[in-house]
């Protein structure tokens, strides 16, 4: 790994090095490293409480680490809040979807970054332009399950909401998109749609980090997988060079898995 240092600038879009995060006396992350290549889908797996969400929240600015450095395209960056991350082109879609139920699809896509026109120092929304742009965007991602851009997000199905949340991430985070359990609580068909959308992202050369409990999904779409256990990075594997058994062993701890096998 160390011999690659010179090439890292080209190879990795994002590097998080030595990330440490404590909540009170509990160490959620202990000196974790994470490297994301250009245009790859990187899966992060681990048991509940392994620190997956914490790690990604740090990268997306929702949490601040106690120690550690983050490099974006080889340059060190300080991410102190979600806005910093957004400005750097890193967007996370959260488990709770980060959509505002009572706003419509277009308003959600543009939330926080509305197209405005200044009149008397006030930012007036260009509603029509936003609606047209929103439609164009969804069509360009091949999203056909949403019929009305003015529909409130509340009235959408879980899968549609997830698709909108991800589209929103694509809309704004044009370099790195972080997905936290995008298919949790979704049916098979809806999961399929979300997974197809993630593949579309890859084809657009967007780098994706995805947390998932579903190893089938991980193996069907990811290029690489990072395994966290008890706040530590216990393994990184190319998907082609590993299998479910090995990953499960890493997730649960080899010892435990070993006992199970006997």
């Amino acid at each position, binding site marked *: 790994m160390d011999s690659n240092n010179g090439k890292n600038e080209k190879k990795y879009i994002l590097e998080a090095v030595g990330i440490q995060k404590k909540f009170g006396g509990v160490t959620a992350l202990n000196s974790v490293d994470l490297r994301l290549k250009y245009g790859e889908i990187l899966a992060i797996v681990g048991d509940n409480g392994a620190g997956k969400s914490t790690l990604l929240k740090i990268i*997306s600015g*929702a949490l601040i680490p106690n120690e550690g450095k983050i490099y974006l395209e080889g340059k060190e960056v300080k991410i102190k809040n*979600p*806005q910093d991350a*957004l400005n750097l082109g890193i967007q*996370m879609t*959260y488990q*709770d*979807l*980060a*959509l*505002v*139920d*009572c*706003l*419509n699809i277009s*308003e959600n896509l543009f*939330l*926080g*970054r*509305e197209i*405005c026109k200044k009149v008397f120092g*006030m*930012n*007036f*929304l260009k*509603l029509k332009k936003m609606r047209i742009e929103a*439609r164009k965007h*969804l*069509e360009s991602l091949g999203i*056909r399950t*949403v*019929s*009305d*851009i*003015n529909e*409130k997000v509340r009235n959408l199905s879980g899968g549609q909401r997830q698709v909108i949340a991800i589209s929103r991430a694509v809309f704004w985070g044009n370099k790195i998109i972080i997905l936290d359990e995008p298919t949790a609580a979704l049916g098979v068909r809806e999961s399929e749609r979300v997974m197809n959308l993630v593949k579309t992202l890859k084809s657009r050369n967007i780098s994706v980090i995805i947390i998932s409990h579903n190893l089938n999904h991980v193996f069907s779409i990811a290029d690489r997988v990072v395994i966290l256990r008890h706040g530590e990075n216990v393994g990184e594997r190319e998907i082609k060079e590993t299998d479910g058994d090995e990953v499960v062993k890493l997730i649960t701890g080899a010892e435990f898995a070993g006992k199970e096998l006997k």
Partner: protein
Amino acid sequence: MLETNKKRKFDFSALRRSNILTPIAALLFIITLLSILSPHFLTVSNMINVLRQVSIIAIVSVGMSYTILTGGIDLSVGAVVALSGVVTAILLKNFNVNIYLAIAAGLAVGIISGATVGTMVSSKIKMPPFIAGLAMMSIVRGIALIITGGRPIYDLPSYFSFIGGGTLFKIPFPVIIMFVIYIIAFINLKFTKTGISFYAVGGNEEAARVAGINVKRIKTLAYIISGLASAVAGIILASRVMVGESIAGFYYELDAIAAAVIGGIRMNGGEGSIWGTLIGALIMGFLKNGLNLLNVSTYWQQVAIGVIIAGTITFNLLKKS
């Protein structure tokens, strides 16, 4: 496929989404019913009369709607109505201050009070809005009592009466002020980035924060708007009765909450139209007026208002499920 509405037809679905149809239906029902029951109800003079009576609560309700939209509530509005009126009255009578300065001072009372509540609510300790408002209600009311010694301030200069008593083309000033405030609030909430942020913060605070919206700023702003609106109402009230009273505006917070809720502003925040609030205030105003015309006792009027509140909310909840 995503469809583009080429034809410019009336967007009924937007109206349906805005949750405003129930209050409109209720208002029309009440107007129709009272017109049948009383020949004096549906006259121009009575309508103007009701509008004038409603205007003060309706203005307070605008501010209340902002705070409820962000997922909060402002219980200090009634006390601010009193203190702003008192401050303006005292400056005019005892200190002979220029009327515009006196009004500005009254408005400043609202802004300062609102900013205080807003800061308490949005600061790190995250004081529950209910508690912050309760505390501020007591503080502000107390200050009004201290300043006046509990006595009403009479004999205000006659030129002060134009705000509450003046008319323009036979329309009372308070009514004009009310409409202007509603139009400004409507434009702000519907067509500006700040406006949509109020909805976003109330609808999903975490999502709003992650989207880069300054949640603290938006929340504080809502309470400042609420304080300011209450101060406007307080000054109008003082001007209309030509008295600065520390006991003015009692229970206005409850009327304002009722107006907002009847008008379809969701108590948890994030949803509702400001026109709904106006309709909510009108419903209560017409009801009180009509029942007065029918010689129904004020005690029964209270019961009627309660039934209307429970009824509209039930209807809205049923419609959703």
